[in-house]
């Protein structure tokens, strides 16, 4: 909505009062339409009945304008009554974006990047997680879905990561209230950061933004940081996703009821390659003790050695299989995954009268994924409304409740990953995991049976969340409006993981369990004054000034019970030793802000903002910081003559300074309780993190320049931006050598730079076909260059995390992009030739840069073809670059199951296993080219190939058909005499096609879920493709 400019002045003679009613093309009255007397500064707005009243001279021209409708100009004639019927103009709709604090602004007037998301595409994406639904829609937003589980978290980073160890994810705002997007996991501290390989064995939860029902969303804007988010302060330093929920509409005849139900099926979209030539064993011989598949080749018809006693069929009793043929089952990995099913039902009712409107919805999503018993069920209820108590005073409120029930499994070394690493070909993946007494039949005490895990273990979680706000606005004067909004986001998250007695990976195999109770409360209170002045006929000033208080409280109780006492009793009282810890984080931020926009003749704009925050996490003498921003736009096409080639052209630019405070409790060093007690005695140890009472805030500065152009009568639209952002004084734990008594201390240092280009190109209706075929193409392109410029003095790098197997690190190293892999590379000479040892085998050099997680560029192609009631749309994504560490492959090579190990050597005489290889390189000690045939033994693969990390850093460049949707809208003729307004059927396809050279499963994955440690592909549920159908009916 446009701001009202309401100023009346004394008029000249011949002036009269013109009144009338403004309605839309259906005849319904239109409130809020702007009426201007052309070439004056007289204006008015239509009221709730569509009625208006304005003074104008005969012969002057009245301009009627309203967003979503085409402007109309009517000359004042003899009559004093002018009724207007406005016609819808859909192309105008895209020009409004919702910016900070829910204020809608015309995109033309913005000096910074703000992209709107097509909310229809959100629902069509058939994703549980709102963040995943955004993927491919907005340039410069890098989203990684961590895997194919229904409760997989998604990581979102806008314009590159800037904080080395802090938060790099944007702020999510619903109806003006910031909400929480935490990702929890089942470790006692609540964080997994890859510093310990066991982190890969924790269950990682889903990120909390996924609790929102995408069906409730009316509009979504991505603000990419800098000037766009300067008004939000600290929390939005990495950008903000502004969501506005549906509200219903006023003056609606009757109720608007909408019902939709959709069903989709998912399956794994890409499998790694395995070899099926070898049986269980070591060094070519069968062994009962081993997890490996380095045993005899099946082509040799191997039999079990004499005296082999093993439980061959999983019935719980050992069998003497001496002399029998070793059985063969293929495709065990493939057969482990089932088809997932997802059912999504939503109903909403909305309506409104003269003074108010409301929206009520309910939704249920039920998804069982590709892993049996891996489930996600979400129920949402939303109620929202607003009402005008008087002309000047409007109140509103919203409450949205979500209940999410999940059952999930651990990955990595204590979950399904470990068993799948080692599952030999001699067992069928569908064999039983318990015998008739429900005792475990699995052979190993150190590696878990994946079937046991998915049937007997499993972390149950339930989240109950309420997001709500109450708000009011009061028109104090024509030029001043008071807005007040108070909102809360509170959730309780309870998790329980039980690993029954005899579960491998529990101490002594006696079972264990944990219970987690989390309560989180985020409260925001925001009050501001806003308004508009017409300074003179060319210059318009709008302003916003206000303050907000943000209070956050996070409380997490973790109770761990070791050694379960009775079978099949899953209460914490069943644990022999119970220890607990509590994490209580409390934070308050108080801020004041203001924004002033000057608008000169509607083609030159300048916006200045300033915000000052006081944060409780910074030291008292230094807890206030100020950040300004300035942005401007110049619509130079207004100065040109109207022409068909360039109908709109704008140059824009902005600069902003942003800040980020310190993490909680960074100021004082403390002691920590260490559990369990030793000899019955409790202990407290000094924490190995040394805190800093003089910590300062992190500062970043960002600027961008760009242009927006519309060519050939809006046939082609181009939006191009170049940006740069620097972050310094990062609050980093600086590692200390352990002999200092501490592992790290907190200080400000480090610098990271990101710069890049984003471009959007839209080609609208380029066929211009008279038969009604409309073809639109949309492209968005982004390229980000990341560089870590500086880390604390004396350090080579800061380690962000480790992979699971080898100790390859993900680091921030000066001169390299953020998220660089460092590990062992093959030793080569200056010309790039391998330097081999005296046995002809390759050697390694450590501490080498192997690649980095950032893509070089991404290009999304979003075409749309519609004809009559049919619409076909999709998203095709091209991505170049970005490396992934194939940790899963390391596991399968170790196990002897990877396709890579198909060529192997046991004995020169074994024709099915006598592969050797002459490496293309020179023997280092002699300088001669190697002619030595190196036997590719078990040991070679374990100690040489696997130890060389460069073998596993793979490029993930891809072409991916992310979405493909075919919608059919029943023609309105059929529905004319029914009470049904609209029926549509959509066939959805998600991730249907992927073309990549990456050798493992789908490379969009992350072993640790959302967070800074990305780039490690461990064995978790692989990503999926899905297809299905949705039916929507509107009454």
């Amino acid at each position, binding site marked *: 909505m446009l701001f009202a400019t309401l100023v009346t002045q004394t008029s000249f003679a011949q002036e009269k009062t013109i009144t009338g009613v403004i309605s839309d093309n259906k005849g319904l009255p239109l409130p809020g339409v702007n009426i201007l007397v052309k070439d004056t500064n007289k204006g008015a707005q239509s009221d709730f009945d569509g009625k208006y009243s304005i003074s104008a001279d005969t012969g002057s021209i009245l301009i009627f304008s309203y967003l979503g409708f085409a402007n109309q100009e009517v000359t004042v004639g003899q009559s004093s009554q002018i009724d207007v019927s406005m016609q819808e103009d859909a192309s105008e709709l895209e020009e409004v974006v919702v910016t900070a604090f829910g204020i809608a602004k015309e995109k033309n007037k913005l000096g910074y990047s703000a992209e709107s998301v097509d909310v229809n595409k959100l629902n069509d994406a058939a994703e549980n997680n709102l963040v995943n639904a955004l993927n491919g829609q907005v340039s410069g937003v890098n989203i990684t879905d961590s895997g194919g589980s229904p409760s997989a978290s998604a990581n979102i980073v806008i314009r590159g990561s800037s904080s080395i160890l802090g938060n790099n994810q944007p702020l999510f705002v619903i109806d003006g209230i910031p909400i929480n997007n935490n990702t929890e996991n089942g470790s006692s501290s609540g964080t997994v950061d890859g510093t310990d390989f066991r982190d890969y064995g924790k269950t990682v939860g889903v990120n909390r933004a996924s609790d929102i029902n995408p069906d409730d969303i009316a509009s979504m804007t991505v603000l990419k940081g800098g000037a766009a988010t300067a008004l939000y302060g600290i929390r939005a330093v990495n950008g903000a996703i502004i969501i506005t929920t549906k509200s219903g509409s006023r003056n609606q005849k009757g109720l608007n009821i909408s019902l939709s139900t959709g069903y989709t099926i998912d399956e794994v979209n890409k499998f790694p390659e395995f070899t099926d030539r070898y049986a269980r064993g070591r060094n070519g011989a069968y062994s009962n003790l081993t997890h490996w598949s380095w045993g005899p080749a099946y082509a040799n018809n191997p039999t079990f050695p004499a005296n082999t006693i093993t439980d061959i069929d999983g019935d719980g009793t050992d069998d003497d299989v001496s002399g029998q043929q070793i059985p063969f089952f293929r495709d065990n990995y493939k057969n482990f995954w089932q088809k997932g099913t997802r059912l999504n039902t939503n109903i909403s009712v909305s309506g409104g009268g003269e003074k108010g409107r409301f929206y009520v919805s309910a939704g249920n999503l039920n998804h069982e994924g590709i892993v049996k018993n891996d489930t996600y069920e979400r129920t949402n209820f939303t109620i929202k409304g607003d009402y005008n108590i008087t002309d000047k005073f409007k109140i509103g409120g919203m409450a949205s409740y979500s209940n999410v029930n999940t059952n999930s499994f651990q990955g990595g070394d204590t979950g399904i990953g470990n068993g799948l690493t080692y599952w030999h070909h001699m067992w069928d993946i569908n064999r039983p995991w318990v015998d008739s007494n429900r005792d475990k039949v699995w052979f190993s005490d150190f590696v878990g049976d994946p079937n046991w895990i998915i049937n007997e273990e499993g972390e149950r979680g339930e989240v109950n969340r309420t997001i709500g706000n109450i708000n009011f606005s009061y028109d104090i004067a024509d030029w001043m409006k008071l807005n007040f909004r108070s909102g809360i986001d509170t959730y309780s998250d309870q998790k329980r993981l039980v690993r029954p007695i005899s579960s491998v990976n529990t101490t002594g195999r006696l079972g264990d369990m944990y219970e987690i109770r989390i309560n989180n409360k985020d409260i925001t209170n925001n009050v501001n004054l806003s308004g508009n002045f017409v300074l003179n006929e060319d210059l318009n000033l709008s302003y916003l000034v206000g303050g907000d208080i943000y209070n956050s409280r996070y409380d997490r109780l973790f109770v761990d019970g070791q050694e379960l006492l009775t079978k099949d009793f899953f209460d914490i009282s069943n644990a022999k030793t119970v220890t607990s810890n509590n994490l209580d984080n409390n934070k308050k931020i108080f801020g004041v802000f203001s924004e002033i926009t000057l608008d000169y003749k509607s083609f030159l704009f300048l916006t200045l903002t300033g915000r000052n925050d006081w944060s409780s996490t910074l030291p008292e003498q230094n807890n206030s910081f100020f950040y300004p921003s300035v942005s401007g736009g110049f619509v130079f096409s207004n100065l040109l003559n109207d022409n068909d080639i360039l109908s709109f052209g704008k140059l824009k630019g902005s600069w902003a300074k942003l800040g980020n405070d310190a993490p909680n409790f960074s100021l004082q060093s403390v002691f920590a309780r260490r559990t369990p007690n030793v000899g019955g005695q409790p202990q407290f140890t000094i924490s190995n993190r040394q805190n800093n009472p003089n910590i300062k805030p992190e500062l970043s500065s960002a600027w961008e320049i760009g242009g927006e152009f519309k060519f050939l009568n809006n046939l082609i639209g181009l939006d191009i931006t170049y940006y740069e952002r620097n972050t310094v004084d990062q609050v980093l734990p600086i590692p200390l050598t352990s002999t200092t008594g501490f592992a790290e201390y907190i200080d400000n240092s480090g610098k990271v730079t990101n710069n890049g280009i984003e471009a959007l190109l839209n080609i609208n209706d380029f066929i211009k076909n008279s038969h009604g075929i409309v073809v639109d193409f949309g492209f968005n392109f982004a390229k980000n260059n990341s560089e870590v410029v500086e880390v604390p003095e*004396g350090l080579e790098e800061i380690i962000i995390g480790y992979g699971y197997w080898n100790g390859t690190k993900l680091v921030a190293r000066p001169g390299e992009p953020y998220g660089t892999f460092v590990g062992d590379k093959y030793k080569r000479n200056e010309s790039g030739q391998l330097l081999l040892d005296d046995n002809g085998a390759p050697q390694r050099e450590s501490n080498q840069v192997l690649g980095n997680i950032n893509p070089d560029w991404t290009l999304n192609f979003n075409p749309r073809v519609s004809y009559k009631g049919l619409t076909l749309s999709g998203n095709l994504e091209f991505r170049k670059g970005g490396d992934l560490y194939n940790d899963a492959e390391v596991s399968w090579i170790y196990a002897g199951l990877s396709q890579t190990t198909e060529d192997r050597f046991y004995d020169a005489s074994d024709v099915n296993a006598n592969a050797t290889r002459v490496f293309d390189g020179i023997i280092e000690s002699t300088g001669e080219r190697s002619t030595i045939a190196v036997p590719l033994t078990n040991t070679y693969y374990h100690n040489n190939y696997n130890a060389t990390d460069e073998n596993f850093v793979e490029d993930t460049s891809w072409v991916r058909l992310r979405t493909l949707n075919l919608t059919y809208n029943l023609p309105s003729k059929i529905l004319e005499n029914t009470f049904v307004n609209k029926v549509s059927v959509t066939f959805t396809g998600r991730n249907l096609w992927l073309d990549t050279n990456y050798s493992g499963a789908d490379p969009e994955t992350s072993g640790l879920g959302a967070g800074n440690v990305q780039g490690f592909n461990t064995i978790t549920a692989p990503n999926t493709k899905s297809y299905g159908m949705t039916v929507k009916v509107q009454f």
Partner: protein
Amino acid sequence: MKTQNIINYKNIFLFIFSVLTVITSCSEEFEEINTDPNNPKEVDIPLVFTSGERSILYKYGRFTNGTDWDLWCGLWIQTFAGNHGNGVNYDLYDILPNASLWDRQYDALNDLKIVISLGTEREAWQHVGASKIISALALGTLTSHYGGIPWSEALSGSENPNPKFDTQEEIYNSMFSLLSEGITDLDKASSITLGEEDFVYNGDVDKWKALAYALEARYRNHFSIKNPSGSATAALTAVDNAKSAGFTEHAYDLIFPYEGADIYLNGYFHLFENNQMIASEVFMNTLINTNDPRKEAYWNTEATDGTVVGYTGKSNGFGTDNASYSPVGPQGFYGKKTSDQLIATHFELLFIEAEAALRSGDADRAATAHNAAIIAQLNLVTPSAIETLTANGGDVSAYQTKISAYITGFASETAGSITLEKIMTEKHKAMFTMNSESWVDVRRHNYDYPANLSIPINDGKAIASEFIQRVPYPEESTNTNSNTPGGVTIFDQLWIFKAN
């Protein structure tokens, strides 16, 4: 018009007023909010003492997947051989620059430093004394693995991020100061008494003093190469002090008591479970050939997967293979879940006495101590073998005969028959699972005793041309402390083992 003005004024006033009240209420609360409610800023001395004591002593015999040297140097003294995983790697001298022993010890030393400084301030002399003695022990173990280590500049956090490496000589000097100060402190009148927070000695100050003398004896004896006669005299003085202070029975031994639950399971039991180290062939053969009754007390006949293997050892350097060998645990003296980990014992003291006496020319005293040492250790460990035999219906009296026969054969030396080789070979057997100290003995004698130590052979070739002498400095130190000495190899002989 007038009404509108009043409203305007009123509203602006209300707005400013509410904003002001909100601002003032905020700043008061900030400091309170940012105080960590999960962790205290100060704690009582006893609680920190337990943490320091526990963390230092916990590292003896710890398996921790290949990062704690005390357990793994059992490979280099060849009582154990590598079976798979890291066991094989370290057996083949493929040593990684791990940090676990190092960083946990310094972490614990930091806790003890806090106890010492707070205790000195508040005159809690018993805690101060005990802390100093434990600190000396920690330094002793660290220096025996690494040589020169940070100490005088260590434990200062960000004030000194690059602490210099004291020389091994300086470290030994610091250790002796700590031990003597500790003894003096324990005698002072103390504001609080050491109690059950001391989960090892239960606050018995006499035992701490005795331990301090025993440790001094041990460390004085380390100077056998640098100062043969001086070290013998000093060691014998300390031995006498320790004995008169009571360090003559198992109750005075420094041990880590394991409850057998949760993370407090004996480390050798863990080793039995994961099987990365297993009985060494040369050691097992020695036990068999000398008809040593400790064979039954140390080793078990059933491998971890249930295969019955009898008493079989694996040759050092062999690598991974499919066969099974004798493990320590799950029964026996050393390998039960609840077995105590021995750290400093009364029979070690007797062996020190024997060695020092022999060096100072008192062969009589040497022989007496030697015999007493063997008998003391046999008395400690053989009952567990008898227990197992009784439970399995084995021949207990035959075993007891075996014990007596062994004593007659090996623990009946005289001034005429006693030799350094016999003392060190018997000590090597008795110091089973106390690998760090045993490795010091072996290196001190240039790998000459026991005589069957040889450089491991792998695939027909010796893995190196010399024996291993030390472990590399941890990678984290090399990466973050610019004062870490570079160019260190595992064959560099430590200062304490060089003649001069």
